């Protein structure tokens, strides 16, 4: 697996094709899972991942070395996922489903989602969180990002991220204890 240094060196030499290949070697799977948890559906995640790579590739000459490549790529993936979700929301603006049923409708429509193999209670508890709490919890727990990294990716304040995470953790624990 490639490291951050393997990406920075070709980037400094303006070898952008080499740099993007090194990014793919290091973060391809991580970026996919980050996007998948936000957009949920595999096909949507696949499309968003492609758009993310195009933006990364086109943005490489402008990379200012102010953050790590990893955080920068995650930020692009995050923004691209939000852009996709906004487009979806505009298409379904008159959809009257509740938040929880909408959450599950989106999941169960995906042939690459297997509800039987997982704890239904975990998804139930995630569906009950606010969007911010869901995102923060997933980035911290599944992506194993630090609070500072999440702040760089989302532009949210570190303290509000910590608050959202602990609130989410508490709600999930309560829900899982009550149902499992």
């Amino acid at each position: 697996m490639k490291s951050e240094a393997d990406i920075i060196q070709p980037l400094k030499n303006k070898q952008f094709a080499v740099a993007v290949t090194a990014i793919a070697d290091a973060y391809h799977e991580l970026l996919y899972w980050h996007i998948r948890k936000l957009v949920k559906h595999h096909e949507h995640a696949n499309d968003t991942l492609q758009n993310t790579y195009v933006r990364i590739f086109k943005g490489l000459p402008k990379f200012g070395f102010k953050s790590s490549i990893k955080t920068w790529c995650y930020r692009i993936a995050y923004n691209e996922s939000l852009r996709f979700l906004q487009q979806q929301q505009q298409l379904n603006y008159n959809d009257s489903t509740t938040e929880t049923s909408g959450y599950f409708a989106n999941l169960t429509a995906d042939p690459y989602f297997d509800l039987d193999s997982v704890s239904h209670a975990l998804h139930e508890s995630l569906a009950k969180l606010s969007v911010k709490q869901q995102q923060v919890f997933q980035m911290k727990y599944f992506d194993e990002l630090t609070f500072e990294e999440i702040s760089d990716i989302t532009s949210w304040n570190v303290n509000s991220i910590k608050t959202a995470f602990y609130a989410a953790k508490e709600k999930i624990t309560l829900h899982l204890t009550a149902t499992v």
Partner: protein
Amino acid sequence: MKKKHLHNEQLGYHTPEGYFEQSKKDILGFLETQKPASKSKPVFKPFFIGVGLVAVLVFGVFALNDNTNEFDSFEQLTIESLDLEEEEFDQWFDENFILNDV
């Protein structure tokens, strides 16, 4: 891989067989046909801002001069009109306003 296992086991998210290898190959293949955006040189920014400011200033000065002249001539004519007799006014008005514009 740990991540894949975690997402499969706990969230029920699956991917088609060999998805990661194939999608990486496809995406990098597609990017070979693309060009990264060239870095814009900030040197030109102040230049264009300067040109814009000069254009606004020049246009502003001309517009102001034009309005001032118009205002001056109107003032002058209004003062002149005070010296006119009632009967002469119609003719004076035609000459200075109506015919002047034709």
